[in-house]
C-alpha cells in the first residue's frame, strides 16, 4: 500500500491567497478599531490645546484690560503668537460679549470641537473673529469710548 500523499488538497496558490486575505482582514480590523481611538484622541488633544490657548489669551486680555484702565486715551497693542493649528487642523477664535461678560470662543470646526472661555473685563469688548498664529490684543479709544479687541 502506497503511503498517503500528505500534500493532497493543498495548493501553494490557495495557501498564499488565504494567508494574505486573513492578514488583510486582521489588519483592516485593527486599523478600523484604532482609527476610532485616534479620532477620540485627536479631539481630546484639540480640546485641551484650545483650552490652553483660550486660557492664555484670556489672561492677556485681562492684562490689556487693566492697562486700559491705567490712564485716559490708552492705546496698547500686545503681540502674541499661538500655534496655527490644533491637532493638525486650523481653528478660529471669536471674542464677543454677553451683557457685561466677555466670552472667547475657540472653534476647530473640522474636528467639531469648540470651547468657551470667560474673559474678566472692565472695558467694553469689540467683537472680533480671528484665526490662530499671530494675534494682537488691542485696546484703543474711540468715539464710543475705550474698548478691547483681538486682531490678526
Amino acid at each position, binding site marked *: 500500500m502506497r503511503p498517503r500523499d500528505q500534500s493532497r488538497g493543498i495548493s501553494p496558490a490557495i495557501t498564499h491567497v488565504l494567508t494574505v486575505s486573513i492578514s488583510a482582514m486582521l489588519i483592516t480590523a485593527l486599523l478600523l478599531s*484604532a482609527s476610532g481611538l485616534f479620532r477620540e484622541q*485627536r479631539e481630546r488633544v484639540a480640546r485641551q490645546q484650545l483650552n490652553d490657548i483660550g486660557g492664555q489669551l484670556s489672561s492677556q486680555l485681562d492684562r490689556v484690560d487693566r492697562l486700559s484702565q491705567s*490712564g485716559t486715551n490708552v492705546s*496698547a497693542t*500686545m503681540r502674541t503668537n499661538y500655534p496655527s493649528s*490644533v491637532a493638525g487642523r486650523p481653528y478660529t477664535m471669536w471674542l464677543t460679549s454677553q451683557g457685561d461678560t466677555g466670552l472667547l470662543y475657540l472653534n476647530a470646526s473640522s474636528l467639531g470641537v469648540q470651547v468657551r472661555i470667560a474673559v474678566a473685563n472692565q472695558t467694553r469688548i469689540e467683537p472680533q473673529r480671528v484665526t490662530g498664529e499671530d494675534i494682537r490684543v488691542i485696546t484703543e479709544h474711540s468715539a464710543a469710548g475705550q474698548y478691547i479687541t483681538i486682531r490678526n
Partner: protein
Amino acid sequence: MVTDRTARRDRGQMLLVGAFIIALVILGIVVMLNGIEFTENVGNQNSITAAEDAARTQQMIRRDLRQMLVYVGPRNEVTGYTQFPAADDLDENLTTYSGYRANMSVGNTGAYVNATLNDDRTHEGEFLVEPDPSIGYEKPDGLTDASWQVADDTHAVQGFVMNVSTDGSGSGVTANVTDGTTEWNLTVISDGRIYVNKSTGTAPTCTVSTDYVLVNVSAGEFTHPSGAGCGEFSFAEGVTRPYDVYFTRRSGTWANGNYTMAVRTDDGGMALGFGAGSGDAYTRPVVMNPVVDVVFEDSALSYESELEVNTSEQP
C-alpha cells in the same frame, strides 16, 4: 545529492508576504498618526511680563509726578508748598526725569520709556497768593470796599487755602462762591466761630480755640487746627460752573491772615491779583491738572496713555 527546491521557494514567498504585511501596518499607522500633534507649548510669558512692567512704570511715573509738582513749584507762605508749577518749569523737569526713567527702564527691562507734557490737554491757570498775613483779607489796592472779587467766571478753583487769625484781633472774613443765582459761603470770625454755608445768626458749624485756623476751602477740609464739628464739607455745593469767588469783610474790618488760590483760566476764567506793592496779593501763571503722555515700548507690547494728575488732591 538531491536538493529540495520546493521548500526554498516557499520560504521566499513567506518572507515576501511578511514584508508586505509589515509595510501595510507601517503605512496604516503613518496614515492615522499623520495630522496628530500633541499640545504645543503656547507660552506667551513675555507679553504678560511686558504688561506688568508697563503698568508698574505708569504707576511710578504717576507717583513721581505728584512729588515733582510739589518740588518744582515755588513754596508759598501759606501752606509751605504748592502743587502748581509753571508750565516751562514742569516741562524742563519732566524732560530730565524722562531721560533718567528711560535709562533705568532700558537697564532693567530693555523697554523704551518716555514721558512728555501734553500741552494741549494740560489746563492753564493762575496762582493767586496773598503772602502777608498782616495785610490780611483787605483789598490789596488799599481801597476800602466791603467786598472784592478774586476769581471771575471760572470752571475750577484748586488750592484755595485760607489762613485766618482767630485770636480776636480782627473781625472776620467770608469767602463767597456764586454763579449769579446760587451762592455758597464760608465765614471765619476772629473769635473762632466758623460757619459753612449758613448764616452767622445761627449756631456755628464749629468753633476753634486756637489763634488761627487753616482751611483748605476747595478741598473741603480744615487742615489745621480743627475743632469740634470741624469735619469735611463740600466746596461750592449747589453752585454751577462757571462761578465767581469774592471776599466779604465783617463788621467794618477785615480778618487778619493770608491765602492762596489756583484759578483755571484756559476756559475763560480769571484770577484777580493786584501786585501793587510788596506784600500785596499777586498772581503767576501755572499748570493745573497736568497731563503727561506716557510711552512704553518693547518687543511684546506697545503702550501709550495720557496720565492726568489731579492737583486738587493733597500730595
